[in-house]
């Protein structure tokens, strides 16, 4: 064992940041439970305290075992997670329309939260094992299957927001494992393409409110199929060209048109699969005033709450937007709005700083990890933390569409809190067992 393993090798900075976030979390979940008469109507904050304490216990438990055991058991952990997801689909409880709960609502768990960790561990193990031929397309595709399976299962619940977290986890781990940039770029480009092709017709239909040619094209099934057919033809021709002449130009034409075809196809599917409320969420993200009393209400109220907070906020427990219940889903999805309203820019910066510290410490731990497996896990966890932070706070500030994913460490909810605590525990674990700094 390492002689340097002393009390001080613990990463206390990260623990401090987490404790700070936990205190803020309990305070503002309490605040969100107050009604306009100043009376507390909810016991969520007590439950949150219980979850934080048990979460810290879980964190300690995760730190105790050498993370190299995670490598040995990576696929078992992953397998259990997938099994839980399937069970959830079969016998889970519906909350807010998604069959995502196992057990009773309120005391049950959301397996989709824990699966994130299982996937990170499995993916890291896979990449660490195949690190010498990581640039091969076959390895890339096999790696892609690992997050794809839980994504499909979570989409079936259906919970779009939670399933999206797997994309940045995959991208970041593969990126750091050293895969070819063009594979990753292919995925990113397809994603951007899908978003563009889905949003452009909506934007033009709901926001500009006029029948442009874009709407005509995107609403006409036959025309869409024709365009898709044309793109596929280009793909085939350029593929033949590349095999025949081995000129780079054909490769890149083929590459671009595959992206366009996939984007078009998925966008067409999306228009069929997306529910009305999901489409409205995208539309009000583009312009909340399209439906200020309905779908745009949450965004407008959240913006007002944050904006009216000012430099130091209205004071703890004195927010007007939240306590009059203008703001929905206060304790989970919109917890940041209350924080920003009651303790202002100053307090929000404390929250930002805590997250920034956790992320930067994450990078340092990843860099100082003694082996690839450890550092890949770190990057996966960083990707998860970062994605939740950007999407949730971006949503509260109106620069991201509403997806309903929690703000880790702050939002009310046991499963997401335990997942974040365990994730942090893994980071500390890896730091604790680094065999010396390498700079």
């Amino acid at each position: 064992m390492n002689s340097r393993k002393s009390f001080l090798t613990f990463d206390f900075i990260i623990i401090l940041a987490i404790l700070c976030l936990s205190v803020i979390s309990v305070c503002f979940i309490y605040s969100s439970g107050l009604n306009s008469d100043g009376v507390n109507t909810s016991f969520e904050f007590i439950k949150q305290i219980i979850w934080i304490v048990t979460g810290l216990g879980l964190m300690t438990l995760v730190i105790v075992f050498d993370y190299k055991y995670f490598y040995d058991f990576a696929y078992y952990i992953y397998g259990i997670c997938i099994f839980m997801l399937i069970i959830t689909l079969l016998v889970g409880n519906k909350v807010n329309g998604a069959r995502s709960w196992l057990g009773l609502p309120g005391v049950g768990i959301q397996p989709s939260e824990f699966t994130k960790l299982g996937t990170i561990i499995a993916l890291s193990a896979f990449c660490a094992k195949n690190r010498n031929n990581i640039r091969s397309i076959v390895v890339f595709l096999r790696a892609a299957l690992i997050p794809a399976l839980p994504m499909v299962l979570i989409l079936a619940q259906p919970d779009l927001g939670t399933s999206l977290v797997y994309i940045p986890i995959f991208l970041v781990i593969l990126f750091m494992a050293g895969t070819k940039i063009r594979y990753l770029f292919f995925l990113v480009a397809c994603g951007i393409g899908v978003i563009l092709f889905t949003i452009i017709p909506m934007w033009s239909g709901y926001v500009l409110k006029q029948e442009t040619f874009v709407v005509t094209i995107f609403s006409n099934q036959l025309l869409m199929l024709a365009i898709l057919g044309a793109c596929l033809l280009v793909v085939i021709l350029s593929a033949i060209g590349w095999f025949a002449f081995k000129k780079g130009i054909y490769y890149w034409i083929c590459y671009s048109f595959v992206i366009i075809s996939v984007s078009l196809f998925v966008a067409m599917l999306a228009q069929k699969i997306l529910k009305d409320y999901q489409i409205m969420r995208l539309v009000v993200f583009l312009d909340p005033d399209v439906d200020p009393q309905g779908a745009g209400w949450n965004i407008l109220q959240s913006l007002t709450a944050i904006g009216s907070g000012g430099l130091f906020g209205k004071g703890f427990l004195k927010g007007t937007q939240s306590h009059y219940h203008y703001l929905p889903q206060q304790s989970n999805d919109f917890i940041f709005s209350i924080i920003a309203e009651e303790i202002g820019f100053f307090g929000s910066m404390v929250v930002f700083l805590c997250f920034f510290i956790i992320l930067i410490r994450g990078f340092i731990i990843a860099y100082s990890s003694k082996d690839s497996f450890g550092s890949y896990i770190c990057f996966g966890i960083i990707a998860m933390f970062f994605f939740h932070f950007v999407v949730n706070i971006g949503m509260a500030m109106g620069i991201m569409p509403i997806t309903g994913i929690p703000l880790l460490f702050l939002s009310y909810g046991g499963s997401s809190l335990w997942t974040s605590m365990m994730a942090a525990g893994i980071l500390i674990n890896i730091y604790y067992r680094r065999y010396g700094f390498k700079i």
Partner: protein
Amino acid sequence: MSNNPFENQSIKKERLFFLVLVVCVVFVIFTGYLFSMQITRWMEYQNQAWAVARRTSEAPALRGEIYDRNYDTPLASNVDSFAVSIVPAETDRQNLPQIISALASILGTEAQTLMNKIPQADVFQAIELKDNVSYGQVVQIASNIEDFPGISWSSKPVRHYNHTASLSHIIGYVGNINPEELHLLYNKGYAANSIIGKNGIEKEYDLILKGTPGLKSITVDAKGRNVQEERYIKAPVPGKNIVLTIDRRIQELCEKALGERMGSVVVLKPATGEILAMVSYPSYDTNRFYTPDSASYYRTLLENGNHPFLNRCIQSANAPASVFKTIMMTASLEENAFPPDKKIDCTGKLVLGDRTFNCHQKSGHGPLNLSDALMESCDVYFWELGGNHLGPKKIEQYSRMMGLGEKTGVDLPGEVAGLVPSPEWKLERINELWVGGDTYNMSIGQGYTQVTTLQIADLIAMIVNEGTIYTPHLLKEVRDVVTGEVVEERTPRILHKADISSHTFHELKKAMRRVVAEGSIRRLFNNKVVEVAGKTGTGEVGYTDRWTSWFASFGPYQAQNPEDQVVVVVMIEASNEWEWWAPKASNAIYQGIFANQSYEEVVKTLDIWYLNNGTDVIRRRSE
């Protein structure tokens, strides 16, 4: 080539740098954006928040009115009244106790109760201090408004019931929502100051009646006085009017025919399930719940041993007594259990083991066939039939088939299901074996069987409809408050459809007609306007000189149009002095309904000799 995953890691520094850069850039963008929202554009958002929070208050929605089927004058309506509120952020904290005690003396209430409602936080939301404030009291506050900083008032109509008495059980009443109700209904648009139906139709159809409150903005001058102008941000949507199936005239008729006797009356239209009248005595005065002494009145009612809150038509169950013999006759005919024309000789008693069962006519009825037995209500015949030919299984089966032992699904809260016993039930609940005596008791509607008045009305409805019971209901239609347009109409729904031949029902109806035309009550039924068929019941409940009195009937006996027929069920509890009142009341009710007369006119027309001195005319137990 090493494939050890635990060999020293070698992450590419450029890629790591790229990721760190992305994180840093996003943090800078988010911080900048937050800065622009909270610092640069703070005023803009602040005004928006104030515009919403400070100057708005809830605009209550007017509660829908309740009408009877004639839809002319409302049974439940709203009268003007005010609510006094305080905006904590605008009042004078130092002098608050003096302000509140002055206010309390005007409003005629305790200062402490008002103080308890004021939160510590300086919120801009108006907090309601007291409702049901009169115009005069508001004028007193308004003329001294300088002394009452932060105090305001708004119109808050209170409920008024134009007819109470027996209608109280049906219509119910409203009150402020309590924390338990709010906890349950928070997601259905209720708030801490909501008014909610507490009983009867007001509770059952609260969501239709209550409407949706709006938001209004109030323009206030610098001192927070003088409401100059109110503007709706969101107009309140008034609740909808409810039209009941109740016919006010028949309801009043039944109420008076029942008089001050503990019991219940149900008048039902068998063709649709519409309830035309539903009376339960004793009752209470709902309007007194909105007066200052409401709390003590409420307590008096709760402590009253006669349970005035109980709607005896649906919330209490009794033994059906001989009315049950209609079910026995149905079962016998349908199962061919015993030839209907074959006679059984009633000697006045029947011996089973070491027990002797006495027929209500001790001298015996002599030889009787099935129809005679129903007419005479001979116990011996039905004991023989139930004990030796049908058995408890079949009796239970037919009871359930005809709607007993299960809720009728009437649209009122708190209905009870009654009970149909069976050997299994007895073993499980009383832990005793079913004996022959139990079957005997069950056969004449005594023993464990428990039914509500409404279930008996449904039983008669099934006989009239020859196999179908329509769910009994009180809601006729929902109408728009402004246009009066019907927005929703209650259509008849089938509750039960029994597979019983119409021949059986024909025979049964004939026998029930004989009960009224030839049986012992023929002299009571002196009305000339309608031919009635029915069945009496006299239930033993432990007194020696008093019995429960049932009369379950329908009329006219022969109708061209089934819509014209009504079912009348009267149940008088044994706690009243015995006067065999159920058939007598029914006679008066039929006269009133079909001759279109009030109760007073009925009394005159029928010259009802039994009205006041009835007790000494028939003082024997006779069926």
